[in-house]
């Protein structure tokens, strides 16, 4: 049986290292609403692959630096 996959992100940390980029600025760069950025930071929304790439591009880093996944439960 597959374990449960949980996608986490480092958006808050990356915003800080990008000169304390605001949620609104990131939202504008990624073409989404500020509420979507807030939901992602609170782990309440997992973005589509396209949006994930757009966020990574906004920070100028690779997608794996923005998103990471952790599995819970054993993979059998």
């Amino acid at each position: 049986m597959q374990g449960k996959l949980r996608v986490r992100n480092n958006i808050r940390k990356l915003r800080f290292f990008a000169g304390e980029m605001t949620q609104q600025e990131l939202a504008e760069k990624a073409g989404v609403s500020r509420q979507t950025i807030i939901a992602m930071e609170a782990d309440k929304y997992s973005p589509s692959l396209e949006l994930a790439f757009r966020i990574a591009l906004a920070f100028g880093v690779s997608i794996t630096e923005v998103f990471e996944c952790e599995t819970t439960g054993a993979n059998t």
Partner: protein
Amino acid sequence: MSYQEKKTITSLVSGLVLMVAYAVNAWLRYRAGTAPAADLTLWAGLMLRYIGLGIIVTILVQILFHILLSVGVAVKAKIRDADCDDKGIERSIKQEMVEDERDKLIQLKSLRSGFIMAGMGFFFALISLLLGHPPVVMLNIMFFSFYAGSLLEGLAQLYYYRKGL
């Protein structure tokens, strides 16, 4: 509160007002005897009038809501930055009203709740016929279930916006 939440609440309130207006109107007509249960043509006409009224009210309320929201955003932008020009204000309004993939996903998920409610209404309408109630009861159950479905859709949207997907 986000733009989408405000828009949903506006739709919910206008939908609720229309549903109550129909219920009161239908009940008063039925009690006064001007809308007998057997006269299905009259009931169909009444429902169609409310559907038309619903469309007009929804359009007007949404126009009014967007005007007020735009004014609010413009005032906020001016307070934040007194030198903000028209283009800056226009940009702020566009940013406020942006609709993205999360909004579309929430709409789809809540639409499912609305369809379930409408489907249940159809089911109960058929049951009412089986129990020997007049066809007008069936018609009204179906009509109310569509309204209730649209209200549930709005409530589900608010839930997903608050609690997350």
